[in-house]
Structure formats: C-alpha cells, structure tokens
C-alpha cells in the first residue's frame, strides 16, 4: 500500500552545529530502511552527495519536511535557511541550536572581533607571523574564491525564518523523531504551527524518579566531583545544580539516569518566557541564608551564572548577547 502513496520528500541540513543532530537521525538504526521506504531524502549534506544547486533548482514547496539543525552563525547558514524555508512545506528547527541557539550561541558572550583575535592571533598554538585573517573574497588564477561572512551575533533559526515546529534536545531523542516522523507520514493531525513537538509540557522535576522532599535548603553549591552521589536523592537537595525545575521533559531522563544533573537542553517549559530567569528564581529561593554577606558567599560557588542558566538558550533570551 506504500506504493500507491507518493513518497515524502525530506531534507536534513546543518547550520552552526556539531553534527550530533544528524547522527541522531542516523541513530534510528535499521529503522532507517523504513524511513527510506516512506521518504526520499533529497538533501542531506552529512550523508548524501547533494549540492546547494540541487536545492536551488527545486520548485518552491517541493520538500515536504526539512529538519534544520544548528544555529545561524554566518551568511551561508542564513542563505540556506532562507532557501530551505522557500522550498519546504514543513520546516522543523531540529535540536537545541536551531531551537534556542544552543552551545554555539554561547559565542554571544564575545564579539566577532574577540573571536577572530583569539583564534587567529592569541591562542597558545597559533603562529601567524603575517597577521593573516580570513577574507570573504580572495583572487586566485582560477577566479575569485569566496568565504561566508562570519556574523557578530549567533541566532536561533526562528530569528531568521518562519519555523513550523521546534524539536528540542541536544540532540533530540531519536525515539521522539520517530514519533514525529510517523505522525507526518501517516498524516496524523499535527499541533498548531509554531509549537514545540517531540517533547513534554511538564518540567523534568515533575516526572523525575529521584526522591524529593519539600525541604530544599542549600547552604553550599557543589561541583559534581565534590559529592558522593547516592544515586537516589534529588540533585538539588544534595547541593548540585540541576536544570530540572525549568526544563521540559521528553529526553527520557538520559542524564539523570546516568547520574548526571540535567543541563537544560530540552529548553524551558511552555510558561517560561525567558529560559534562565525562571531558573535563577528557583535556585535563589532554595538558598538557606538571610544575610546579604552569607548569600553572596553561597553565590560564590555559582561561578558563571549566565553561562550556566543560558547554556543552550542565550540567543533566544531577553538579553541575547553581552553588551559590548
């Protein structure tokens, strides 16, 4: 019966990403044959020899489903994001980087100049006697070579184009991808465009299996190596920072099952406008001190609050970048 139905056309693309999202697609393992039976992969740079030109030649709306992973860091990412938006019926921001900015988004603590200076001049392993910097255009005998423009700001996909659905995770759980993919292939009713799919609406803490009491009182924050984790008690109650209170479910508690506190890759719960401030609110309220000096002492252990609370979400928070 699959023969009668036209096959779904699917594309996967990476912007500023580590490649882990593409690997999470491959992680369907042998179910990849079912995917290929239901869908034609028309564009997927990590796995197929397809060119940008192939996409440019497609008619508008030709691709049924595009999974775009990675943030928008340079002009190439932006160009392809716009191109794929034009050619796709459903564009999914796949993974933390395209959903909220992700780890590459932490570059918003620095400026373009800071980064180029560090990479091409200051790193301990760099020898650059000619003080060379990459140029956008370079003339050689064969013609002009071009490099994409490196932007000052890292952006999430939705800041560049209209996104139909967001699939959070670093990377998204393959099981969630299979669920979403099956829903699209079978023509099941999809949620309202702009929604987060493949994740729950509750906070991690609501469904976490660790034992929690109501007495969350912290006198000192510890680094994971400083605590002998008993494997059952709530991380926060042991003084370990855990993003559970404000992070969506959907990841099947992979980190927590592996005895590591949640890092927040599934992004904030639906009612949190800003990913980090909600968490700051929660963390500050469990500190068991009342004197300003004592509070500051406890907070000394939070060495990098901005980096911690916005680890995956800096470009889509209210204060998107460090003021320079």
């Amino acid at each position, binding site marked *: 019966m699959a023969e009668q139905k036209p096959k779904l056309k699917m594309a996967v693309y990476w912007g500023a990403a580590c490649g882990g999202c593409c690997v999470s697609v491959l992680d369907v393992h042998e179910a990849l044959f079912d995917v290929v039976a239901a869908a034609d992969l028309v564009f997927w740079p990590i796995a197929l020899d397809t060119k940008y030109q192939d996409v440019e030649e497609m008619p508008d709306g030709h691709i049924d489903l595009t999974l775009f992973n990675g943030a928008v860091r340079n002009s190439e990412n932006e160009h392809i994001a716009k191109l794929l938006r034009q050619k796709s019926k459903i564009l999914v921001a796949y993974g933390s980087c395209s959903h909220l900015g992700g780890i590459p988004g932490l570059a918003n603590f620095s400026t373009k100049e800071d980064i180029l200076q560090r990479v091409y001049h200051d790193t301990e392993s760099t020898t650059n006697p000619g003080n060379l910097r990459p140029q956008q255009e370079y003339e050689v005998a064969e013609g002009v070579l071009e490099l994409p423009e490196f932007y000052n700001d890292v952006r999430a996909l939705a800041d560049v184009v209209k996104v139909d659905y967001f699939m959070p995770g670093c990377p998204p759980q393959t099981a969630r991808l299979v669920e979403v993919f099956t829903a699209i292939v079978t023509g099941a009713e999809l949620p309202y465009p702009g929604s987060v799919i493949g994740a729950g609406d509750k906070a991690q803490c609501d469904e976490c299996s660790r034992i929690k009491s109501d007495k969350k009182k912290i006198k000192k924050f510890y680094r994971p190596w400083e605590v002998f984790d008993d494997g059952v008690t709530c991380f926060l109650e042991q003084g370990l920072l855990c993003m559970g209170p404000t992070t969506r479910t959907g990841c099947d508690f992979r980190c927590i099952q592996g005895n590591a506190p949640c890092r927040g890759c599934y992004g904030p719960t639906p009612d949190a406008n800003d990913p980090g401030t909600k968490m700051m*609110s929660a963390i500050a309220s469990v500190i068991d001190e009342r004197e300003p000096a004592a509070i500051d002492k406890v907070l000394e252990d939070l060495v990098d609050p901005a980096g911690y609370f916005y680890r995956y979400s800096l470009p889509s928070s209210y204060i998107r970048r460090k003021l320079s």
Partner: protein
Amino acid sequence: MEFNPKIMAFLCKWCSYTGADLAGTSRMEYKPNVHPIRVMCSGRIDPTFVIKAFRNGADGVLLCGCHPGDCHYQEGNYKCLRRYHLLKKYIKQMGIETERIKLEWISASEGKQYAELVNSFTQTITELGPCRVNETMEVLT
C-alpha cells in the same frame, strides 16, 4: 537633550506600595521618573520581570519590599533578597552596570524614605546614562 531616565519599580502591596502611597498623600515632592507596579509580595518579583523591563527600555529597576522579618507572607522578602543578589551577578556578566538594579526595604510608614530613595536612585541612573540593552538587542550584527 537632557537625559530623563525611565525607571520601573516593583513594590509589594503590604509595605512599600503603601509607603509610596503615603509619600503621595503627604504631598511630598519627588522625581517623576519612577513607574511603580504593585505586586502582592516582593517574593513575587520574578527575575524575568526585571530582565524584561531592561529589554523593553528601562534604564533602572527598583525593587521594594517589607523590612526583613516583616513580610506579610513571612519569607517572601528573603527570597527577593537572594534573587536580587543572583540577578546582580548575572547582569554584571552581561555587561550591565549592577547599580541599575536596587533593592530597598520600605515600610508602610516610610513615605519620606520612599521619596528620598526615588530621588537618589533617579540621580544614580541619570549619572549612569541610558541603558544600552534595548538598543543592542534591536540591532543584529
């Protein structure tokens, strides 16, 4: 043109808002730059409110609650105090001057102190100049 700062104030219903009200009913004169918002308790002041105020163009944010030990809900002002300390640490990392947020305890009888606080905080923010958050976030570079 002279810089006229925009300041948001979150005042708790039980002490600080009543204190601000007292300043008004006592016909005290103070700077008109502060836009007060009444909240049920200083413990209700979510850090999101403060950050969103900056994002929407506030130059300073004032937080006021009952004196320690006087909270109508017993613990709210202590929670506010801890959030304030964490927020200051966060905004410093983002390159915003920590003087732009201020927490003060104002009781219902301290109308005069409220008026003085508004004047001194407006003075601080005027000296600091406009907050660049909104302007920086508007432009993508």
